[in-house]
């Protein structure tokens, strides 16, 4: 092999790494695939915008269409009829007062939070601060499994079993009522409130605990006066996220609340929530009618409420992380 050959070989070698056409084509293919990944990543943004647009589009005629507002009546969705607040969209004179529905949603959500928050936060304290490491590794997934039970199954359980228990213990006027629905909802939100609270407690730096103990506080004092307050924003976020989940839950309340749109504060009366109303009425409604648009308006309201609530919850978690992380 002459020197010349070696030089040409080497020359070819350099050329090969510089720009053979197959490699350029491969680069192009990669570029295309990377572009595709980026475009597909935009699906989530597109979905949120599309939900906002299409739910909003069908909801808007409630405010803008003359025909719809004539049927809804002069006072809009809160007006009431002869001093009474009635939701009765299918009748000779349709009554679209959503106040009983808002009250129903509020009632069951509050009941759910009253049951779920103390239980879940206390369980989070046990799992994060007290349980052995082994026990914790079992307990956390076990509690989170509760979130894997479909809501229609929880609803069925509330309908068949829980309502009987509540009836026996309490003797309510209606067998299916706000209390039963609220307790059923608590089943659904416990895992969320627990999980977010537990994460918040574990994010509190260990130095907080050792410092408190070194200053002579008991373990209970350490937990109640140091760790819990430090995790406060995270626990608040857990409650907020639980609220968002409870207010949007559908199948449990459809099955367990009794679905009578009564406007009263009683927990032992049947009640009807926003979600249950949409679920039960949209299937039978004429597309484009005032009733149809009002149901979409309720959906839009729900979407906005959960959007704000979830956004606030996420912000709280981030802020707490940033604060605790900075002081570590």
């Amino acid at each position, binding site marked *: 092999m002459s020197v010349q050959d070696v030089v040409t070989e080497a020359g070819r070698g350099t050329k090969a790494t510089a720009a053979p056409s197959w490699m350029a084509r491969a680069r192009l293919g990669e570029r295309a*695939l990377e572009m*595709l*990944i*980026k475009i*597909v*990543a935009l699906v*989530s*943004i597109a979905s*949120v915008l599309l939900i906002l647009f*299409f*739910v909003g*589009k*069908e909801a808007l005629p409630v405010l803008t269409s003359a025909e719809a507002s004539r049927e809804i009546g002069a006072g809009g969705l809160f007006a009431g009829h002869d001093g009474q607040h009635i939701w009765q969209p299918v009748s000779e004179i349709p009554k679209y007062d959503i106040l009983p529905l808002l009250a129903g949603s509020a009632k069951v959500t509050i009941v759910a939070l009253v049951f779920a928050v103390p*239980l879940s936060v*206390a369980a989070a304290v*046990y799992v994060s*601060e*007290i349980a*052995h*490491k082994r026990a914790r590794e079992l*307990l956390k*997934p076990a*509690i989170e*499994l*509760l979130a*894997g*039970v479909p*809501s*229609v*199954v*929880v609803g*069925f*359980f509330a309908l*068949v*079993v829980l309502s009987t228990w509540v009836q026996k213990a309490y003797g309510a006027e209606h067998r299916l009522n706000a209390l039963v629905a609220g307790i059923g909802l608590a*089943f659904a939100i416990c895992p969320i409130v*627990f999980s977010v609270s537990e994460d918040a407690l574990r994010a509190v730096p260990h130095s907080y605990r*050792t410092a408190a103990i070194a200053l002579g506080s*008991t*373990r*209970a004092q350490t937990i*109640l006066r140091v760790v819990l307050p430090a995790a406060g924003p995270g626990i608040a976020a857990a409650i907020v996220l639980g609220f968002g*989940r409870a*207010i*949007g839950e*559908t*199948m449990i309340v459809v*099955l367990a609340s009794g679905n009578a749109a009564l406007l009263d504060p009683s927990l032992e009366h049947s009640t009807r929530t926003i*979600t249950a109303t*949409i679920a039960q009425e*949209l*299937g039978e409604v004429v*597309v484009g009618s005032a009733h149809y648009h009002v149901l979409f308006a309720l*959906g839009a309201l*729900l*979407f906005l409420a959960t*959007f704000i*609530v*979830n956004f606030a919850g*996420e912000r709280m978690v981030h802020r707490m992380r940033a604060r605790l992380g900075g002081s570590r």
Partner: protein
Amino acid sequence: MTTATASQARANWAEDRRSHFGDRALVVLTLVATLLILAMLAVVLLDVVVGGVHVLSWEFVSAAPTKGMTAGGIFPAIFGTVALTLLMTVAAVPAGVATAIYLAEYAAPSSVLARAIRVCIANLAGVPSIVFGLFGLGFFISTVGHAIDVAAFGGQPTYGKPSLIWAALTLSILTLPVVVVATEEAIRAVPRELRDASLALGATKLQTILRVVLPEALGGILTGSILAVSRGAGEVAPILFTGAAYFLPYLPTHLNDPFMSLGYHVYVLATQSPDVDRTKPLLYGTVLVLLALTFLLNLVAVAIRARTRRRLKSSM
């Protein structure tokens, strides 16, 4: 080091004899709360299993409902649920994995786009399922389906009506966050050294992702997909208006057919049954099948995740 002392401190806590009354009260109260939540899970599982197990038979899972849904089986509902979740997975998993790859491998931490995607994912996870149902009706059926009908079928309602494909796509958006979160976590857990080694050997970034990172993250992708399937199979609210049917004499064979589903069947039997006492056993049986499907999938996912996490910890 700190974590070791932390867990030690926690471990000693329960046995500490000198602990104060307040300490012991706190332990008891929080333990009771924990047990109560576990009892919620146990009582639901137990009731459904006890009520439903004697209904299960080959006929129950292989035959169609008869006598106005007061007898027979639930095969069409099982078939519908499986078809629905399969279609949903085909749409949700690739989109979710691509999103996770973008977030974990391509986007800069401070990227505005990445932050927007994260906000939207978190938001999608929080949107009430009934709103997805409204969206499916307003977007997929009334807009996309209707446009297809006008373009290809002369305005004849062919795709502009509730059907399998629209329900599956609606569910795929609902379950997208589950896939993204699990996959991104798994991708981020792949050690940096593996990427560096691959890049140092001359692999391109995309080759590294496809041949090194993704195979390593397979456990997480699998977890996310299984959780998504479990979630999708159990959801009822989003399919109420997008394709679920009360009763069908035939199985869905086309993408634009309506379908029966287990969750919807439970809802129908529980609320619209002509004879409550005669349907109750069937209802329990259906709930048991649905719960077995979703719950077992969940259990598998949790087990895979626990194993992946343990392996990760031991390799670090």
